[in-house]
């Protein structure tokens, strides 16, 4: 039996048997980027640890495909961002307040699609500004308000489009005031952290859960006045699947609060930079947390 189970997990059980409709399996999907993939793997393994059967439909090409698959009943559950749901699915204006954003998407998805948003993670994969520990200590930087004030002494490393977009530097200047950097240089995406580490810049634009931040032990400055839209991740689940598997909500609600920015960064870093298998990374996270 053990051996059979192991084989089944490896995917060596007869194909047709595995493809036959299995109403007891929860079909967990992911989109085609690392964070979605790893967090979906966390969900999948958490459900398996709770004794549920899981079928993985990872690597879906887009949000639209994922939502369509949910509506068709091909997928029961996948990790989605509040900001993505709000802007790309519901076509509503962005919201910077995490609670407000979550409340809107939860209400609208339930009504329009019969899809339930379970409790979101604190992790917020948004835009941000990062700096080194040394600069943060020297300039007393913890929040974006701090940066807005200290900007005339600071050099910014960024990418070209950040200087033009309304949710880039112009928006920051209007929303927070200040943000008049001593110097602004644009770099290739891969090189902007390099500039920071080499002392050619003091602050760099970043994505808040970027694995590189963990590797280089950079600090992400808190968006204390919520300028950028909230991109909290949460499991979205078909209401029907939730009814069929009551343990689903309980299991994922226990996992989600533990996925912080730091956890997401570490997992992204492990997969993309350390080239670890997402299954191993997710397993390690679940082991460490319980």
């Amino acid at each position, binding site marked *: 039996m053990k051996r059979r189970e192991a*084989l089944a997990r*490896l*995917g*060596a059980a*007869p*194909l*047709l048997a*595995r*493809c036959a409709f299995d109403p007891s399996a929860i079909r967990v*999907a992911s989109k*085609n*980027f*690392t964070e979605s*993939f790893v967090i979906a793997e966390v969900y999948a393994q958490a459900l398996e640890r709770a004794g549920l059967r899981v*079928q*993985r*439909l*990872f*690597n*879906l*090409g887009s949000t639209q*495909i994922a939502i369509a*698959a949910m509506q*068709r*009943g*091909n*997928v029961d559950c996948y990790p989605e961002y509040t900001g993505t749901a709000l802007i790309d699915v519901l076509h509503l204006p962005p919201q910077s307040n995490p609670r407000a954003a979550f409340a809107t998407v939860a209400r609208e998805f339930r009504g329009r699609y019969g899809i339930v948003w379970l409790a979101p993670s604190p992790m917020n994969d948004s835009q941000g500004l990062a700096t080194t520990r040394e600069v943060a200590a020297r300039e007393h930087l913890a929040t974006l308000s701090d940066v807005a004030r200290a900007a005339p002494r600071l050099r910014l490393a960024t990418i070209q489009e950040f200087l033009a977009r309304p949710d880039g530097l112009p928006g920051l200047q209007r929303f927070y005031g200040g943000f008049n950097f001593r110097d602004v240089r644009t770099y290739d995406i891969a090189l902007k952290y390099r500039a920071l580490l080499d002392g050619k810049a003091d602050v760099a634009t970043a994505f808040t859960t970027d694995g590189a931040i963990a590797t280089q032990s950079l600090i992400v400055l808190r968006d204390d006045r919520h300028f950028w839209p909230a991109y909290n991740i949460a499991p979205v689940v078909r209401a029907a699947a939730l009814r069929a598997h009551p343990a689903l909500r309980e299991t994922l609600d226990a996992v989600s609060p533990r996925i912080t920015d730091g956890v997401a960064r570490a997992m992204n870093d492990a*997969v*993309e930079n350390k*080239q670890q*298998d*997402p299954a191993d990374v997710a397993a390690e996270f679940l082991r460490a947390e319980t």
Partner: protein
Amino acid sequence: MTYLLAHPARVAALAATHVELVVIALVVAALFAFPLGVLAARRPRVSPWLLGTLGAIYTVPSLALLAVVVQWVGLGFLPIFIALVVYAQFMLARGVAAGIGGVDAAQVDAARGLGMSSSQVLWGVEVRQALPVMLGGVRIATVASIAIATLGGYVGGVGLGVLIFNGLTLHQPAMIVAGSIAASLLAIAADGALRLVERAATI
């Protein structure tokens, strides 16, 4: 290679499902393609229409076809399976039509004249005579299907494509390389094995 060496069981399991997917798809495809090919060989007027239609389907880009099939049957095993069955039609039916159509007319006339029933003529003479050509079609369809089956990794499917597409998503070149090498080895092995069968069947 590093991924292959680190996860041989996972790669082997995915390769096994890959082979399974291709074999099942080709068997099902042959159930359609064989009668279609025989029909094309028997009815010269129907042949260009039939093979033309199948050829036109064959030229639809695989990803586009897959997208259409996904709309229709959803994600998982089914869309890539259906795509493979549809794609293989042209290669298999063309092989059957060319094989049966190329059988020495005198042997068929003699077989009928000596009192073989139509099914005895078909299976005992035409199919046997056409076997090398038909197997050529099977070989081409197999190699192509092994390649196309990797797209299964794009629609929540099965097989080595999972490694390739996961590797692309996760920026893990080792995974992509492992999936590609394994798929290539499968294709080369299938090509070689079917060449041997083809040679054995040559009269």
